């Protein structure tokens, strides 16, 4: 991550103007202004708005400048830059749609231009953390409104009337007093000459006049291309003279190449060369693992050649990593006190004096992202210049890392962002692009590095593996008076710093220290765990094990005290209030200011109530069926899910129905929210049913969809209903959508299985546990 290079972090939010050199590569003609020196006011927060976000604290902050994001051609075609990566969330439709809305542009005359990696120019581009809408709703509105204002000013000038008398309406500016009209295209050149209005003075549209936002009536911009095969992903880039590379990497993380024999590989028709790829020592951050590359005239030959390699590896320090032994280690650690990361009251004493103590210990193994498109990248390095085409979530970070890896200035690196065939956090790490760069530099020609599915599964930055142990102390009336939650898991930080044994604040803040329950004696602990493989962000990250544990525990307590699980859940959430986290030293809140994005239990209760109502909680279900419920706040959104399961007498699990309620604050594109939640149910069910990567002798034991299955259509839920809770006020800040659907699914499913069968599953995946 490039947090330290973030100038705005140091400077805070004060407004400042700076001159920047717009590069010749600039993909924009900027409202008709090409090249040259352009004034840009890079970081502007919104003094006139009701809330603040963490956007300004991201590396390179936010750029609010219409000339960077909008261009208008004389024929009226409006081009809007999408500066975030499209991996299936719909972001490259939704963010430009916000600009178009405020600009009063006609969406059918809008074209989208994907930004290359340049955070000085575009602001932060890290497409992760479910941040895009949350950080960019207001900036994108301001960009659109600025451009609209400039068009209005140009028209007013041309007509010699006050700007207050003209108004942009649906791709033209009108002067209603005289009935005159000018199209956006006719005004573009003049508009470009107007000064960019100050953010403070901008008039934003009244939400009740929105044509597009909040409606969900616009298809994604790539829809036609995707359905005709014309959409371009990383692997679809083809350059003249390009070679195809497939790489054999050390089977154990941190292992090294000792020697190789490429003679058999060279005999494969189409193979042209076998060569070493440089690797970095463990912990290798986002750098390549190293290995042996087979270079060929097509991917098929490269794969065949790679399979014919004979390689000797030194397995290194992680050669003994064994998932069975490691689970026992984690369990042992969870049964002893660990680093206290939140403490209110005296949980230890309250557990001792409790009338009853319920203990739940939950295990969640590693899993792999397995995005449908395996990692792939094309690079063309010529002298001290490099151009990359890759499906990356972090175009800016990739540019920095390419520059560092080659020892060239960042300005000499162009990172072109293709569509991503899924990301889920895997493509926030650019190791695959760096491999392509290294090979292209050495070969002097463009190179495409294609990972096979086996490469992807065996060399992922895996979701962590964890044991979550919760002890709940009840008084004689069944009221929960003590809660101690110990979470043990190797940290993502271990991929960057050797010797890491504790989780980082951003991991602790995902469902551990932010526990919203109203319990007098609350303690959260983080015992030590060392990593033996690369750990990375996986869609919703530590929220998955935490929601699984906490929400399973709620149902366990309900069962032990003979109460309805939903009532139990509401009782534990307690009164509507803002949760006070003053006892937490480092209360990470998804990077957001707590004032704008507090833990609001009224909203948490509301999604539970909505889903219970709409999803028919308590309805009678056929024999062998059961309902389960779970709620979780993550990425500052609130989501509750009810799952109905059916388990037959052979233990076969089906899910006839899923209901999910989401409160993600002010929203832009409800249709894509729905699709994200539908998808989260599938991903949640995949990981609950099958998600497990195991190690033996330091090596991943799975490789493809046969031994690492993911959910298929014939096992998918019968129906997934999504209810979007409307924002409380028009100023309710937007919050995350891409990730938060995942965490509550698995516990709701597990609780439903318990309701249907009386079997309590505490270790994921479900696998064969229902076949008794």
């Amino acid at each position, binding site marked *: 991550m490039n947090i330290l290079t973030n100038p705005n972090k140091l400077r805070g939010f004060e407004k400042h103007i700076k001159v920047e050199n717009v590069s010749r590569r600039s993909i924009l003609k900027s409202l008709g202004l090409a090249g040259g020196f352009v004034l840009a006011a890079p970081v502007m927060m919104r003094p006139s708005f009701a809330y603040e976000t963490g956007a300004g604290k991201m590396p390179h902050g936010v750029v609010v400048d219409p000339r960077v994001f909008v261009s208008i051609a004389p024929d009226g075609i409006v081009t809007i830059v999408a500066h975030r990566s499209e991996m299936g969330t719909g972001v490259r439709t939704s963010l430009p749609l916000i600009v178009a809305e405020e600009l009063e542009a006609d969406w059918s005359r809008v074209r989208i231009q994907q930004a290359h990696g340049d955070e000085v120019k575009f602001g932060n581009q890290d497409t992760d953390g479910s941040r895009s809408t949350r950080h960019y709703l207001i900036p994108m509105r301001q960009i659109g409104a600025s451009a609209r204002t400039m068009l209005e000013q140009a028209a007013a000038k041309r007509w010699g009337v006050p700007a207050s008398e003209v108004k942009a309406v649906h791709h033209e500016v009108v002067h209603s007093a005289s009935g005159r009209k000018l199209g956006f295209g006719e005004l573009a050149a003049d508009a470009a000459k107007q000064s960019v209005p100050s953010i403070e003075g901008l008039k934003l549209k009244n939400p009740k006049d929105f044509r597009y936002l909040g409606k969900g009536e616009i298809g994604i911009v790539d*829809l036609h291309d995707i359905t*005709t095969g014309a959409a371009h992903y990383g692997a679809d880039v083809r350059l003249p003279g390009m070679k195809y590379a497939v790489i054999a990497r050390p089977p154990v993380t941190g292992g090294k190449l000792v020697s190789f024999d490429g003679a058999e590989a060279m005999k494969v028709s189409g193979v042209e060369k076998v060569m070493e790829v440089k690797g970095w020592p463990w912990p290798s951050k986002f750098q390549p693992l190293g290995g042996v590359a087979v270079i060929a005239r*097509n991917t098929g*030959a490269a794969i065949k050649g790679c399979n014919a390699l004979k390689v000797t590896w030194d397995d290194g320090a992680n050669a003994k990593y064994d998932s069975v032994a490691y689970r026992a280690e984690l369990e042992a650690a969870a049964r002893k006190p660990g680093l206290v990361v939140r403490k209110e009251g005296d949980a230890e004493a309250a557990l001792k004096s409790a009338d009853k103590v319920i203990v739940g210990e939950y295990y969640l193994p590693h899993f792999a992202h397995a995005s449908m*498109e*395996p990692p792939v990248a094309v690079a063309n390095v010529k002298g001290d210049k490099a151009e990359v085409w890759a499906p990356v979530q972090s175009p800016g970070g990739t540019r920095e890392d390419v520059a560092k890896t080659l020892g060239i200035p960042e300005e000499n690196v162009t990172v072109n962002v293709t569509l991503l065939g899924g990301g889920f956090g895997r493509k926030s790490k650019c190791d695959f692009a760096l491999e392509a760069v290294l090979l292209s530099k050495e070969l002097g020609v463009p190179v495409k590095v294609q990972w096979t599915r086996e490469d992807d599964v065996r060399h992922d930055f895996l979701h962590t593996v964890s044991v979550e142990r919760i002890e709940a102390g009840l008084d004689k009336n069944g009221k929960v008076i003590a809660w101690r939650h110990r979470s043990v898991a190797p940290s993502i930080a271990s991929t960057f710093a050797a010797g890491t044994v504790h989780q980082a604040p951003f991991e602790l803040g995902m469902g551990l220290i932010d526990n919203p329950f109203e319990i007098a004696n609350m303690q959260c602990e983080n015992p030590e765990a060392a990593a033996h493989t690369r750990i990375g962000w996986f869609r919703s990250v530590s929220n998955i094990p935490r929601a699984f544990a906490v929400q399973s525990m709620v149902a366990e307590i309900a069962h032990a005290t003979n109460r309805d699980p939903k009532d139990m859940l509401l009782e534990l959430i307690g009164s509507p209030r803002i949760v006070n986290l003053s006892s937490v030293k480092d209360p990470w809140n998804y990077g957001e200011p707590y004032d704008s994005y507090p833990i609001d239990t009224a909203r948490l209760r509301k999604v539970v109530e909505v889903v219970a109502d709409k999803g028919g909680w308590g309805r009678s279900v056929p024999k062998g069926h059961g309902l389960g419920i779970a709620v979780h706040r993550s990425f500052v959104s609130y989501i509750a899910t009810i799952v109905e399961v059916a388990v037959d007498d052979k233990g076969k699990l089906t899910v006839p129905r899923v209901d999910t309620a989401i409160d993600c604050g002010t929203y832009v594109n409800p249709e894509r929210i729905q699709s994200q939640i539908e998808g989260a149910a*599938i991903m949640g069910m*995949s990981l609950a049913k099958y998600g497990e990567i195991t190690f033996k002798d330091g090596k991943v034991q799975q490789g493809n969809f046969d031994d690492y299955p993911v959910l298929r259509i014939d096992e998918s839920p019968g129906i997934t209903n999504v209810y979007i809770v409307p924002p409380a006020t028009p100023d309710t800040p937007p919050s995350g959508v891409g990730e938060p659907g995942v965490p509550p699914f698995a516990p709701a499913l597990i609780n439903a299985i318990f309701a249907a069968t009386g079997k309590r599953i505490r270790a994921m995946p479900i696998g064969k546990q229902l076949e008794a």
Partner: protein
Amino acid sequence: MVKLKINGQERNWDGDPDLPLLWFIRDEVGLTGTKFGCGQALCGSCTVIMDKQAVRACITSVSDAAGREVTTIEGLHPTGDHPVQKAWRQVNVPQCGYCQAGQIMQAAALLMDNPKPSHDQIRESLSGNICRCGCYQRIENAVHLASTGV
């Protein structure tokens, strides 16, 4: 020398006859709509239609396709308006879209064979096509829409 037809056009290959058709189509011919997802007939991303049958191009060799007529997503309909493609757009099916060419080709093959499939038949026929983004509900609805018009 292997001769085959891809989207109506004659193609020749005098390289490794065992080369998977997928890589011939993508890397040698340059039609990139057909995707790689697993290489082992486990995911359906590479689905093409060969003489009216959906096949996995990743385990079909170029020589298996000799003398055959192969249709890829690019050749399914001249303007991209096959009923399945149209239904896909109406339902706004895709998320990342990477699996969708394979899904569409599989669905098109299903409808050639069975113009009015039941929900169970749709699910069964498409069970070899993984969508990691989880668009299954919409895929099912879109196939239904393509077959019934509603």
